[in-house]
């Protein structure tokens, strides 16, 4: 046996001892393979091998264990793969953040059977083990994501190009040629803007000498595509000339092309985003006048213009983000609206330009978003007549058609959510364990901290400012203050928060699941702070049957029962929001905390049976928000409704809500939003 260092020798002795105790034959076979094992694996690897052998011995006896010893090579290979391999799950949060940093339309990273992008997501394998080194495999994930980001970013999936591609005769033959030509163009672009990435792309392309030579020749033949101004049409133009020629091999980070899938996504998005943009511009236009004193021009005839779009490239080449765009309304100051800019970025990415009619918004002021169901409650609630409620509390409701309250109109009862004892809570903790680590870290820093309080009646030090002032006051013949000390306090956060969870029928499925997951993560995060928090659900059917579901009261701890109630949150019926806000706002107002937050998690507009729709529901909700705000409560709404930007500002005010574009992101975002709101 070769010389081992003392630490390793101790391990070996220990292994042999253990095996001797179990069965001398085991020890003999093991010793016979020990040299090779140490040659193939590090100490930890051999240790893992030992564990596997003992496991075999315990479960299936000596013969199986000796067989396992004989299969050392297979074990070693598998073990190394597991060591160097990377799971997508571990890297997903990083990859998404990284791509967000690169800019452009936000892209999700997901596991998929094929590696490709559909312009909304990038699909990647669940596990990568191409290179021996773990860090290289991590980088390969990043490069694959970047390469597909570049397809999106540099016009590879522009609508016009895509339509032309799909009309090509013999698409199956043309597609690989297009993909190979595009790879030249995209990599040249990456090289230009991201020299650091480019170095990595070259290092990890996983090509042999011959493969590299082929690429070199291939790019010599298609030099035009390497120029900064080249676009997808240039690649298209060169397809026919290259048909039939041998194509260079795919690089490690290249994926596949599924143009039909993309076209479907794209057509739908193009339509949606045009509407969304025009609605947003109409809203912004209404908000503009008054911002600026000089040169305001006539708001009714003002036109929207956007500058900073470089038609050749799509974007100003210096900045990759929406920061490159300037949005102007008439001759006023530029409008800084990140959401609209992000939308513009997405549109330009799809179309390669911004068509003029996109910015033509018909004017006309309307204080609230139009809906076609503007009617009062009329025959409200007839359907629910006869429903028997025990001890309801009555609340008023604002009827905008009459411009007054309907007194004692809503009957509200409070019930506990029926607990469901399953492993949902722990399962969620497990599912989000990577994310939780960083949540805990950031909440830890929130909880700590000291502050110096001045002008106290007693304390560790004399507050000289106060003393001097007091002496001066005395000499002036004024009364001398007694608050002359300063002391250090563990800074107490003085925040209380109520989560009001939408439990309407529309949350069925995904939304309900992510709401519950988000609550689990929130509880975990909030337990790190001393902020009192409560969780209640709301739903109901007509004004006679409004219901509030208790999950956690302020004074309740996050007990097993509370956890089981979170699991038990189920979609119910409708969304009568005003009454829920009034009721829960009351609880908050009863607390002494300096900042009292009412955070609503919702998935849509207020809506209930019998007239509580459209403008009526919105006006009542807006009124309820104004009421609790006057009572010192700060209302905030987190919604997953993509249309919410059209109506939430009206109800909550323009800074008091967040729209989560992707339902699945909700659990990731909520604690972050809470942190932002309270620091």
């Amino acid at each position, binding site marked *: 046996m070769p010389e081992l260092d003392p630490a390793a020798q101790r391990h070996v002795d220990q292994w042999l001892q253990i095996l001797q105790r179990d069965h001398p034959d085991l020890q003999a076979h093991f010793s016979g393979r020990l040299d090779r094992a140490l040659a193939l694996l590090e100490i930890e690897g051999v240790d893992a091998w030992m564990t596997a052998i003992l496991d075999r011995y315990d479960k299936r006896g000596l013969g199986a264990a000796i067989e396992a010893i004989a299969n050392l090579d297979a074990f070693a290979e598998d073990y190394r793969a597991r060591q160097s391999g990377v799971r997508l799950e571990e890297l997903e*949060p*990083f990859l998404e*953040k*990284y791509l*967000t*940093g*690169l*800019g452009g339309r936000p892209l999700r990273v997901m596991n998929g059977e094929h590696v490709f992008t559909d312009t909304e997501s990038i699909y990647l394998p669940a596990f990568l083990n191409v290179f021996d080194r773990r860090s290289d495999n991590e980088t390969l994930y*990043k490069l694959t994501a*970047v390469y597909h980001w570049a397809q999106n970013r540099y016009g590879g999936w522009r609508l016009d190009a895509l339509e032309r591609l799909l009309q090509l005769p013999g698409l199956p033959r043309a597609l690989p040629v297009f993909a190979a030509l595009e790879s030249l163009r995209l990599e040249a672009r990456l090289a230009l*803007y*991201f*020299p*650091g*990435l480019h170095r990595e792309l070259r290092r990890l392309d996983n090509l042999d000498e011959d493969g590299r030579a082929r690429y070199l020749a291939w790019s010599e033949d298609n030099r035009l595509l390497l120029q900064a101004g080249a676009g997808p049409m240039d690649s298209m133009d060169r397809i026919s000339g290259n048909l039939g020629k041998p194509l260079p091999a795919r690089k490690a980070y290249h994926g596949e092309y599924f143009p039909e899938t993309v076209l479907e996504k794209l057509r739908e998005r193009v339509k949606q985003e045009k509407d969304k943009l025009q609605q947003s511009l109409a809203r912004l236009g209404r908000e503009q006048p008054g*911002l*600026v*004193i*000089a*040169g305001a021009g006539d708001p009714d005839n003002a036109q929207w213009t956007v500058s*900073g779009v470089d038609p050749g490239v799509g974007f*100003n080449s*210096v*900045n*990759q*983000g*929406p*920061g*490159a765009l*300037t949005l102007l309304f008439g001759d006023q*100051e*530029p409008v*800084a609206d990140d959401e609209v800019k992000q939308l513009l970025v997405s549109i330009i990415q799809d179309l390669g330009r911004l068509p003029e009619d996109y910015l033509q918004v018909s004017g006309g002021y309307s204080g609230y978003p139009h809906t076609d169901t503007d009617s009062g409650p009329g025959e409200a609630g007839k359907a629910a007549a006869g429903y028997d409620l025990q001890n309801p509390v009555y609340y008023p409701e604002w009827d905008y058609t009459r411009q007054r309250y309907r007194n004692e109109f809503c009957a509200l009862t409070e019930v506990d959510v029926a607990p469901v004892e399953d492993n949902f809570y722990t399962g969620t903790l497990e599912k989000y364990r990577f994310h939780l680590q*960083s949540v805990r*870290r*950031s909440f830890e*820093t929130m909880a700590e901290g000291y502050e*110096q309080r*001045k002008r106290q009646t007693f304390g560790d030090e004399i507050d000289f400012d106060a003393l*001097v*002032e007091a*002496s*001066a*006051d005395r*000499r*002036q013949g004024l009364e001398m203050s007694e608050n002359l000390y300063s002391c250090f306090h563990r800074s107490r956060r003085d*925040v209380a928060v109520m989560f009001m969870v939408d439990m309407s029928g529309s949350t069925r499925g995904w939304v309900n699941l992510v709401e519950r997951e988000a609550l689990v993560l929130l509880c975990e995060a909030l337990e790190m702070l001393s902020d009192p928090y409560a969780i209640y659900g709301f739903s109901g059917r007509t004004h006679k049957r409004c219901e509030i579901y208790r999950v956690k009261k302020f004074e309740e701890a996050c007990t097993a029962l509370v956890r089981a109630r979170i699991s038990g949150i189920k979609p119910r019926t409708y969304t009568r929001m005003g009454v829920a806000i009034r009721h829960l706002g009351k609880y908050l107002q009863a607390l002494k905390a300096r*900042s009292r*937050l009412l955070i609503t998690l919702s998935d849509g507009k207020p809506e209930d049976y019998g007239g509580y729709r459209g403008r009526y529901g919105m006006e009542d909700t807006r009124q309820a928000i104004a009421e609790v705000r006057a009572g010192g409560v*700060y209302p905030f709404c987190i919604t997953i409704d993509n249309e919410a930007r059209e109506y939430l500002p009206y109800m909550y005010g323009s*800074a008091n809500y967040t729209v989560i574009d992707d339902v699945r992101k909700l659990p990731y975002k909520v604690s*972050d939003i809470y942190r*932002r*709101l*309270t*620091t």
Partner: protein
Amino acid sequence: MSANPVRIEEYAIRQEPYYEPAGNEIDIFEAAAGNGLPVLLKGPTGCGKTRFMEYMSWRLDRPVITVSCHDDLSASDLVGRYLIKGGETVWVDGPLTRAVRSGAICYLDEIVEARKDTTVVIHPLCDDRRLLPIEKLGELLEAPPEFCLTVSYNPGYQSVLKDLKQSTRQRFVALDFSYPQPDREVEILVKETGVNTATATMLVRFAGMTRNLKDNGLTEGASTRLIVNAARLIRHGIAPRQACETAVNQALTDDEEILKTVRELCASVV
């Protein structure tokens, strides 16, 4: 009797500061100052607000008195207080009073950081009365036409604790300061630090990427100030990546996860 430590002339700015305008903010500020209107500069940290004030001070030829607000700043800190000197009490004007008396520009930086009761003392100065009551002296100061009140505010922090009350904000003419346009920001870097255009472009591109992470891990992206600092380090021979690491990355966040992302973004362009 006065015991003011610094004479007002010392706040005057005699040399033209370098300021790269983004739009017509200079004209607007002049119009506001000429009409006795207070101005609110909205924008993230490090985007040129202070520089703009220095420039306007020079241009209007009025001294600027800057107060950085913090949560301990009391009304007396702004208005003034009695002090004891050699057994006698002496009244000392606060910076706001000094600015009003001498017709200077008073710049209250990060106004939301000040205690809520402090903000209230500026209210009567902001409407058309333009008055500053000094309770302890029993005096009511009327601001001369030259006096100009400017406050700054970062609306980016969507925090309950740091929101500017409507009753305060509606008294101001608001100027929106966001990060300069990319090519202008490159220009600022070049002129301010003397780095070459290629380096400046790379830094601006990197800053843009971190700004994309706002509210997505970062509270705020890299400001112009941070990349100006990085450019200075580079100019003095520090390797670009190292310069970014110390001047930008570490300044942005302590969270290892996010730091890793920021570093990778930096490495991709630098």
